[in-house]
C-alpha cells in the first residue's frame, strides 16, 4: 500500500465503505475499540456488514451502537456474551444477526494467516469440541489438529495511541490487542489515533504496526472510555 493519508475527520476516514463489506474491528471490550470510526461508520450508512471483532459490543456505544442501528448481518467473534452485551443478545435472540463463534486465539491466528499469506493451518485448539465439528482434522506427531482458514477484511477499523505521518503506529498497554494483526488482514486499514506526529518522531525499534499496513489515519479527541464491571 502506498503512504497513508492523514485525514481531518473520522467521516473522511471511513468514506467509501460499501454495503456487504467485512469489517475487522479492533478492541478487547472497550480497550482499543475505535469508537470514533464506528460512530462515523454509522453516519456513513454502510449496511449488511459482517463484523469481525473479539466481542459483540458493550452497553450502547461502539459496536453495540452499530448493531443497534441495524447495520450488521453477521458477527464473527470469540466472546459475544458479556454482562453488558444486551444489544447483541436481543438481536441474536430475535434472529436478526448471525453469529460465528471462534476461539480467541484461533480468531487472532486466522487474521494473522490472512495478513501473512498463509493458505490454511493446522491448529490444536478446539479439537474434540463443538467448534471443530465438521472441520478437517489431521494427526501430526501423535496430536490431533483441526484445519483453520484465513479471515480477511475489506476494511479494518482500529485504534492506536500515536501514528506518524507515514502511518507507523504505536499502541498503549493492553489496548494493543487485535489492532496490529487486523492491520495486516484488510484491504483498507483505517486507524484512529490520539495524536499524529511527524515521521521520525517514533522510535523505529518500538513501532508495532509499520506504515505499510496503514491506509488512512485520523487524530481524534481523547477517548470517551468507560470502564466496565466484570466480564
Amino acid at each position, binding site marked *: 500500500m502506498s503512504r497513508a493519508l492523514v485525514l481531518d475527520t473520522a467521516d473522511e476516514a471511513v468514506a467509501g465503505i460499501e454495503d456487504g463489506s467485512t469489517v475487522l474491528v479492533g478492541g478487547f471490550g472497550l*480497550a482499543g475499540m475505535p469508537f470514533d470510526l464506528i460512530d462515523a461508520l454509522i453516519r456513513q450508512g454502510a449496511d449488511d456488514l459482517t463484523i469481525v471483532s473479539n466481542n459483540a459490543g458493550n452497553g450502547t456505544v461502539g459496536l453495540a451502537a452499530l448493531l443497534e442501528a441495524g447495520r450488521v448481518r453477521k458477527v464473527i467473534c*470469540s466472546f459475544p456474551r*458479556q454482562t453488558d452485551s444486551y444489544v447483541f443478545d436481543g438481536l441474536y*435472540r430475535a434472529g436478526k444477526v448471525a453469529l460465528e463463534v471462534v476461539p480467541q*486465539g484461533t480468531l487472532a491466528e486466522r487474521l494473522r494467516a490472512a495478513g501473512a499469506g498463509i493458505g490454511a493451518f493446522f491448529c490444536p485448539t478446539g479439537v474434540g469440541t*463443538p467448534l471443530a465439528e465438521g472441520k478437517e482434522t489431521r494427526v501430526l506427531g501423535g496430536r490431533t489438529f483441526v484445519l483453520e482458514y484465513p479471515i480477511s477484511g475489506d476494511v479494518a477499523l482500529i485504534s492506536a495511541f500515536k501514528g506518524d505521518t507515514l502511518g507507523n503506529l504505536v499502541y498503549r498497554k493492553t489496548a*494493543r*490487542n487485535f489492532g496490529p494483526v487486523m492491520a495486516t488482514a484488510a484491504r483498507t486499514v483505517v486507524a484512529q489515533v490520539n495524536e499524529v506526529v511527524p515521521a521520525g518522531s517514533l522510535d523505529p525499534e518500538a513501532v508495532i504496526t509499520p506504515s505499510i499496513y496503514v491506509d488512512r489515519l485520523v487524530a481524534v479527541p481523547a477517548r470517551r472510555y468507560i470502564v466496565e464491571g466484570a466480564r
Partner: protein
Amino acid sequence: MAASSSIPKDHSAAIEHTDRGPLTADELAALIARDIPAGSYVNLGIGQPTRVADHLGPSSGVVLHTENGMLGMGPAAAGEQVDPDLINAGKLPVTELPGAAYFHHADSFAMMRGGHLDVCVLGAFQVSVTGDLANWHTGERDAIPAVGGAMDLAIGAKDVYVMMTLFTKDGAPKVVPACTYPLTGVRCVTRIYTDLAVLDVTPHGVVARQTFGASIAELQARLNITMDTP
C-alpha cells in the same frame, strides 16, 4: 509465596483431612498458589481463579499472563491507578509490574498455544476422569455461545489446573466419568482443585492428593468414580 496457616503444610503425611470442613474459595486459592512452582508463568482464568493472584506475593517470582496481551500483570487497579487501556481478560482494570511486556493478540495466543505457559488455572462446569474439560457452555439451547480464550488456554498450558466446587449447588458431581456439557478441551486437565478434594488426572485415572472434610471412600461413593491414592 503466601503462607496460609489454615492448610496442612505436609501433603504427603495427611491425604485425608476429615477433621476440617470443605475449603473456602479463599483457602482453595491459597492452596493453589502454594502449589505453583516459584518463577512460573501463569494464566489465571476469569472468575474464581483470579483469587489465586491474591496469594502469589512478589517473592513467589510468579509472572502473570493475561490473554489480552501482557506478561507481568499486577494486582487490580484502584482509584487513580485505573487506566482504561490496562485491563485483564475479565476486562477489569489492573496494574503493571516491573519487567512487564505487552504484545498483540496473535503473539499472546501463540504464547499459549505454543505451550510456553507453565500453569493455567480455570473454572469448570465439569471435568472428566480422563481430563476432558467443559467450562464454556452449559449446552442450553437458548444460551448464546461464547468461548473467549477458554479453548486456547485448555490445550496450551503445560499444566491445566481446574478450580471449582466438587459438586453443583444441586449436589451433582462435577468430576464425572464423561462430560455431558459441550467440551472445551480433550484430556487437557492435569489437576483438579475443589473444596472437598485435590485430584491429579493421570493416565491411570484420578488420584486423590488431599481431601478436606470428607474421606476418599465417601467421595468415591458420592462421585461414583474410583479414585486412587498416590
